[in-house]
């Protein structure tokens, strides 16, 4: 019961011996799980620790795990003008996510509750666009953006991030809408509820968690996006990842400062991801897995 990999001792052994064995196996599994989890988490932990170090403590061998924490690097980062980058990131992320939901909610309704004729084709069209490599489209996108004066404009990012996340949102929202029981919809219709009431009173309350989960997934992907941001923006509309790569050339040697900036850029999204982790699989497999 405790393990899959351990065969149950079938010979007529002592019950107590078996129990000891079972407990020691469980302990071994626990230790292994925790070693793996900490190994994967270590670079993130190290980022946060380094962010609170004074610059001199960041450069030390052996690495320092104890030090007197300071906020001075965060202050430096904010005085270096991280503000506009943060604003652009927040704006591009939130506006694109709202746009995605506005487009995806009616679309997923037309692919689940009130389906169009060729709903399967449409569904697979959406998912296939997600598989096309973004790099291959950058040349025409750059030239069009240049010609319509959207270069270094945050709205260019809004439009592209919406396109990037729309298929995921359609698939996710559709899988949530399929869970609205047909009987409930029918009962509402028999009671004379119009389309508007049906949507606001019956469907929306049921799919609300789905809307939240889809929005969180869209926020994660839009916030972390770098390729469009670095190629289509320069000074006015640049986002957080672009701010961070500024460290490659100019201040690459300030580790504590870099860690503080990386922490500011990452921690909000990490927390959102932790909250949405149950829905993450659904989003990442385009709704195929639950």
């Amino acid at each position: 019961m405790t393990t899959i990999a351990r065969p149950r001792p079938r010979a007529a052994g002592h019950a107590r011996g078996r129990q000891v064995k079972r407990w020691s196996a469980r302990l071994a599994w626990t230790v292994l799980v925790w070693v793996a989890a900490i190994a994967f988490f270590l670079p993130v932990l190290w980022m946060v620790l380094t962010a609170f170090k004074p610059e001199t403590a960041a450069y030390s061998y052996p690495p320092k795990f104890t030090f007197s924490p300071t906020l001075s690097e965060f202050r430096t980062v904010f005085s270096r003008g991280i503000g506009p980058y943060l604003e652009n990131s927040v704006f591009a992320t939130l506006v694109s996510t709202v746009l995605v939901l506005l487009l995806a909610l009616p679309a997923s309704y037309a692919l689940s509750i009130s389906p169009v004729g060729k709903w399967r084709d449409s569904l697979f069209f959406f998912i296939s666009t997600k598989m096309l490599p973004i790099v291959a489209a950058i040349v025409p996108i750059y030239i069009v953006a240049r010609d319509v004066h959207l270069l270094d404009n945050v709205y260019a990012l809004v439009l592209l991030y919406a396109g990037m996340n729309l298929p995921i949102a359609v698939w996710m929202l559709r899988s949530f809408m399929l869970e609205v029981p047909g009987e409930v919809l029918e009962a509402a219709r028999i009671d004379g509820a119009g389309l508007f009431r049906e949507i606001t009173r019956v469907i929306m309350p049921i799919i609300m968690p789905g809307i939240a989960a889809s929005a969180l997934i869209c926020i994660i992907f839009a916030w972390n996006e770098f390729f469009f941001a670095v190629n289509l923006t320069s000074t006015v509309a640049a986002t957080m990842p672009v701010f961070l790569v500024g460290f490659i050339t100019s201040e690459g040697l300030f580790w504590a400062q870099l860690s503080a900036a990386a922490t500011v850029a990452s921690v909000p999204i990490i927390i959102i991801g932790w909250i949405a982790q149950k829905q993450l699989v659904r989003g990442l497999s385009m709704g195929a897995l639950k």
Partner: protein
Amino acid sequence: MTVVEQVARRTHRARRITPSAPPARRRWARRLPLLPALIYMIVITQIPFIVTLWYSLQNWNLTSNAKAKFTGLSNYASVFTNANYRSSLLVSVEMTAVAVIVSMLLAVALALLLNQKVLGRGFARTLLITPFLIMPVASALLWKTTMLDPTYGLVNWLLSPFGVHHVAWLSSHPLGSIIAVLIWRWTPFMTLIVLAGLQGQPLDVLEAARVDGAGAFVIFRRMIFPHLRPYIELGTLLGSIYIVNTFDEVYSMTQGGPGTSTTNMPYYLYEQAFQAYNIGGAAALGVITVIIVMIIASFALRLIASVFRFEEAVG
């Protein structure tokens, strides 16, 4: 989109969805909510690709004032004859293959571990998925500096008991370092997919096999693995599609160097387009990338169709 249609045909009919050929006006009323999203996606994804195809047939450099000139397939010819193009293709293949295979092996192991009843399983899982959530540019820069630095890096310190001293990872093993970071980022993603598969397997069947005296290895090979197979395939295919497009790590950690040792296709395309302003050449490379990815994607779509059918039948 022939692949899409093929896949879509094979998809199982959902139980509740039985459209009974309503009159044309009602059909359009039904389509109305779908149209904005559909048109948006067509405009934003399909048109750029058609334009890319057109550019790829032209000799067009943004640095010269000369107008674009139609040159047929010569950009494609240079993709296949130019050593740099070919080397970027090889780097992409090596990067993707190694990262996907190692991540998947680790993911199966981790998923089996996480499926046990261990103390603090939820919390361990939360820690484990963090590499996938952190901003890739941020983690790549930190790997480059605080983790892999030859003098002060955490990795060399952790490995010092094993006789590793002050290895300059990024200059002596540039591609290996990037692949390691990719494995770190993508293993959590694949673990989540494999874990979703594991949790769909009824435990009483495994318990019955164990009572019947089947060993752990036999149970894994004969029962767990066959059940996991579609999930492993799905994770591998989706992972390949995402990892082929790796750009953030290359840009942040090595800028394609030293030399061209870490220049993969996306980074080479970026260099061609935004440093050499060779629009025609970059477009040709883009078209080839699309073809390669679409081959992988056609398998992925087929698989999603089958997994999807399974899920819908159960749910």
